[in-house]
């Protein structure tokens, strides 16, 4: 009996690992194999989550962010954290704006508790950075009408449900994906490109659709092999997926979500080119990274903060795009990009901005 029970536990652990990530929207959910969030069990050292409020000034604007992975994931979570730091700098440092964060919140229950705590502590803006946090937010937001919440990536502000203190934000990741695809197909000599993705949904799915469209616009015969590894955290499988692409003849790779660091390592070791998204991954492999689509959420955040200061706490949805400067193409200066390819990329950017290029994403 005992033995059977143990097998069940193990099976459970396996299933959890297998299905990690869950069918949420783009959400970089991390897997928690032996369910027990570190935040609950572990002593203080486990999670340096909330930064101690530095010299609290009465008028400081207080922002809290809850994110699924870490502030330094070179991907989704970092893009938001970097934007907050930029705004803080712009506003005049810690005296003007206070940032608190909870990272590694892959368990939605923990995230919900954190959201509620921050709201209760009187933060002006509480950002739930992950589409899996939506239903929690819908429950919590009405209890704190004086607090503004932001939720991404989505376009749903719950205004139809009568909630008016939630902002929404989303990225048109297919736009930078398209530009990356144009450059990738121009540089690929083999005509074979590999993509490493987490789960075919949300932001990742948009990025890959854009990438394929961009690549095919340059070279109709290009082969884009796509691997969905079913996980936002399995670095080893992401690396092996990249190895598989290289073995199948790809000389250019791209990928999205935070587990791709494994794939970037493989790209560097195999000397194949890499295209990043969400945050700049150039620092990871300066020899092979050509370009990155970088999310700059400051565009959306600036407007939210301005509205909050005027007394409007939600109701608006923001989409960052190439056109509004929320999506930025970031080129690796150390990579010598041929002028005609750069020109094609710039043309693609312009085409997307003026609407002459329409990316089919369904």
């Amino acid at each position, binding site marked *: 009996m005992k033995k059977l029970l143990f097998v069940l536990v*193990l099976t459970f652990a*396996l299933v959890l690992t*297998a299905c990690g990530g869950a069918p949420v929207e783009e959400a970089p959910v991390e897997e928690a194999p*032996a369910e027990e969030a570190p935040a609950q069990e572990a002593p203080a050292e*486990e999670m*340096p989550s909330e930064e101690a409020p530095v010299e609290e000034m009465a008028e400081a604007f207080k922002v809290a962010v809850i994110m699924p992975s870490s502030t330094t994931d070179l991907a989704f979570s970092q893009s938001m954290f970097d934007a907050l730091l930029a705004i803080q700098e712009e506003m005049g440092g810690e005296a003007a704006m206070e940032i608190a964060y909870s990272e590694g919140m892959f368990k939605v229950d923990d995230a919900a508790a954190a959201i509620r705590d921050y709201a209760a502590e009187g933060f002006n803006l509480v950002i739930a950075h992950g589409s899996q946090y939506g239903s929690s937010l819908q429950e919590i937001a009405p209890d704190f009408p004086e607090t503004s919440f932001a939720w991404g990536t989505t376009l749903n502000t719950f205004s139809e449900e009568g909630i008016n203190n939630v902002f929404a934000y989303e990225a048109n990741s297919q736009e930078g994906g398209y530009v990356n695809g144009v450059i990738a197909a121009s540089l690929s000599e083999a005509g074979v490109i590999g993509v490493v993705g987490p789960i075919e949904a949300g932001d990742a799915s948009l990025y890959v659709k854009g990438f394929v469209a961009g690549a095919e616009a340059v070279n109709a015969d290009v082969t884009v092999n796509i691997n969905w590894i079913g996980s936002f955290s399995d670095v080893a499988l992401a*690396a092996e997926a990249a190895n598989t692409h290289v073995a199948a003849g790809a000389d250019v790779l791209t990928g999205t979500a935070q587990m791709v660091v494994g794939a970037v390592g493989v790209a560097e070791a195999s000397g194949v080119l890499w295209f990043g998204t969400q945050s700049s991954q150039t620092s990871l492999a300066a020899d092979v990274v050509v370009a990155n689509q970088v999310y700059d959420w400051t565009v959306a955040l600036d407007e939210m903060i301005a509205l909050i200061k005027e007394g409007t706490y939600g109701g608006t949805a923001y989409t960052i795009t190439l056109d509004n400067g929320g999506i930025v193409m970031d080129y690796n200066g150390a990579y010598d990009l041929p002028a005609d390819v750069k020109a094609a990329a710039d043309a693609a950017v312009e085409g997307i901005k003026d609407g002459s290029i329409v990316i089919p994403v369904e």
Partner: protein
Amino acid sequence: MNPELVIVGVLTSGIRLATPYLYAAIGETFGQRSGVLNLGVDGQMLLGAFAAFYVAFTTGNLWLGLLAAIIVGALMGLAMAFVTVNLQAVQGISGIGFYLFGLGMSELLFKMMLGTVETVKGFPIVSIPFLGDIPFVGKIFFQQNIMVYGAFLLVPLAWFILNKTTLGLKIRAVGENPEAADSLGVSVARIRYFTIILGGILSGLAGASMSIALLNVFQQNMTSGLGFIAVALVYFGAWRAWGVLAGALLFSFVNSIQLWMQVLNVPIPSEIAVMLPYILTIIVLVLTVSRVRPPSALTKPFDRGD
């Protein structure tokens, strides 16, 4: 696509994927054969992976990195041994505790000491003279990095120690009937300390095989539950080194096959492809567990009663 290319690709990928599982699962096999279930493997791996990466990153010396993983693994094993042997704590729960400690501690150290994801130049591929030149087979088996060779050499070594040496006999005796072993003058505590520390060292090496040989990066929770699959592989392998090897290879090959199926555009949904290795593992696990008996004293603390 050229079928030979695909087959070579599947097999080389499978061999690489199996490497960390082998270190961790062989280590776990020693522990379980002596009657100790260690569920902290994943945490030990994470700390080992971080230690190896950090030392290799700062000193540029991969061997020092490996040594760091061994030391960290041994310390984690020592702590686990103290808790389960001396304090006689419930093994399953304390193992989970060690897992969480390793997970959180490796994250904290990563934040404090590295801050962001970095890369190292890991162990290079070493082509074995002559064998590496054999067409087909050479590319699959004999053009890998040193940590891969180590993992596969570990299997016959573990088999030999467990089945052909006095030490192995003592380990098995302690795991089957600690009272009898004790009455014959075998120190149950000492044997268990040995196997748990050895398990810790091998888990540390499993982590190092990822962070400085196969992936050459460290990221928080980079094992993502791999250590738990290693524990399952011990059951799968019926507590035998060769069985563990078979399980690790089966799991890894199915995983690399699913990666290739997606690349080759085999028309099945990626979600199904990704589930394949797990489904297969669960099926085989259920089939084998109903036939094979685990070590009788597994998870039972031993009290001399003196």
